């Protein structure tokens, strides 16, 4: 049989190769795999985000709300009750951990550039937990959750996690695409709602220009809660009752850098159309960022309990 008789042969071969590779068969990559990270061999370039500083390297010039996003950790997901849980792929996951400070955010950012324009996709296997409290101070109730042998107050102690981009090109036109899982409202009520910001993220340049000054613990992605709007329907994830059980979730998020648009977000068995979710660009142009392609994950606590986001593996692929 010739390729003329099997015009989809290349696609079939590609599909077979992906399916036979246990690392890749759990993903659905676009044409070009740009990065694959499973965190059993380091952090693979996922690093702490830090605000900008002046020409003297004086870190006191970093914005207060962007100076303490915490270094990511390589974790084998160990807990006080069962010891080492391990990750989904091998022993280690990338762990983002907030401080036990209400409003505090931890980040991990991966810095790339674009060699084309078109569809861009990030896939990940992730889980999210609040830190266990074992000193007797927690009680059986938090937010709107009371322990009933099934639902655990720890779940209400987890605030939100976010996946987002920082993109720039075509003469300094800069924009973000953002998807956030709001597990709880700021007053610790279960929300379980996907949200997006209607404003671009405040930048260090805007601070330097006197346009914005945010406090430590402010929401750096979009500080005003009113600027976050819902998309999709509420989605219950598998927190799995207590703070020490880890179940891995699938996330696939597609954007279009040619059209500067969101496309869709898949989380487990839910696919959400994001094509109507706006992507507000900055009004002013940015230098030094041509073809910028950054992805970040973040986790923010709405309580005084540390919040964790674990990433087992991440795959970024493109259609260009």
């Amino acid at each position: 049989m010739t390729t003329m008789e099997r015009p989809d042969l290349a696609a079939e071969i590609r599909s077979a190769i992906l399916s036979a590779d246990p690392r890749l068969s759990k993903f659905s990559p676009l044409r070009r795999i740009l990065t694959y990270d499973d965190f059993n061999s380091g952090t693979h370039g996922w690093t702490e985000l830090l605000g900008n500083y002046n020409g003297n390297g004086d870190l006191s010039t970093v914005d207060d709300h962007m100076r303490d996003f915490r270094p990511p950790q390589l974790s084998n997901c160990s807990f006080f009750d069962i010891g080492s849980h391990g990750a989904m792929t091998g022993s280690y996951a990338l762990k983002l951990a907030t401080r036990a400070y209400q409003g505090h955010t931890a980040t991990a950012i991966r810095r790339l550039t674009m060699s084309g324009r078109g569809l861009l996709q990030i896939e990940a296997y992730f889980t999210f937990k609040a830190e266990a409290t074992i000193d007797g101070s927690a009680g059986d109730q938090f937010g709107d959750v009371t322990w009933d042998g099934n639902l655990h107050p720890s779940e209400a102690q987890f605030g939100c996690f976010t996946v987002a981009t920082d993109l720039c090109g075509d003469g300094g036109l800069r924009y973000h695409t953002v998807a956030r899982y709001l597990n709880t409202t700021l007053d610790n009520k279960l929300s379980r709602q996907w949200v997006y910001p209607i404003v671009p993220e405040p930048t260090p340049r805007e601070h330097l220009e006197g346009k914005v000054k945010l406090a430590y613990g402010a929401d750096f992605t979009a500080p005003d809660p009113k600027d976050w709007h819902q998309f999709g329907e509420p989605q219950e994830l598998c927190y799995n009752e207590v703070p020490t059980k880890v179940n891995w979730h699938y996330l696939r998020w597609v954007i279009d850098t040619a059209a500067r648009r969101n496309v869709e977000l898949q989380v487990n068995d839910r696919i959400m159309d994001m094509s109507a979710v706006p992507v507000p660009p900055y009004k002013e142009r940015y230098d030094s960022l041509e073809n910028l392609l950054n992805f970040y994950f973040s986790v923010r606590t709405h309580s005084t309990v540390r919040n964790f986001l674990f990433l087992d593996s991440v795959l970024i692929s493109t259609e260009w």
Partner: protein
Amino acid sequence: MRQVQTAVLERDTTFVSDFATEPYEVAWAGEARFFVHTLAASGDDLAVRLVTQISPDGLTWCDLDGHEHVVTGPGLVTWPVGQFGQWLRLRGTVAGNSPSAKLRIYLTVKS
């Protein structure tokens, strides 16, 4: 090639009283080293005493050994850490008359 990772546990933080750094997971590493860079210090008889702590669960902590590493002024202090478990952190006590120390604390770990 060996794996290595540097984490900035405190970034130019000014301490005026006792503290502990955030828990940091190092289960994959076979050796570690703290670097404490004191950028500024003030107060009569300032003494920041730093002790390595370990934990089985990231929640409950004890000292690794009996070693205190003392900061009295600007400069860099460092020490190796071995035979630890999954987590590392530092606890610090701050003594003196109106003491203040601005610290940048690095943890470097290696497989």
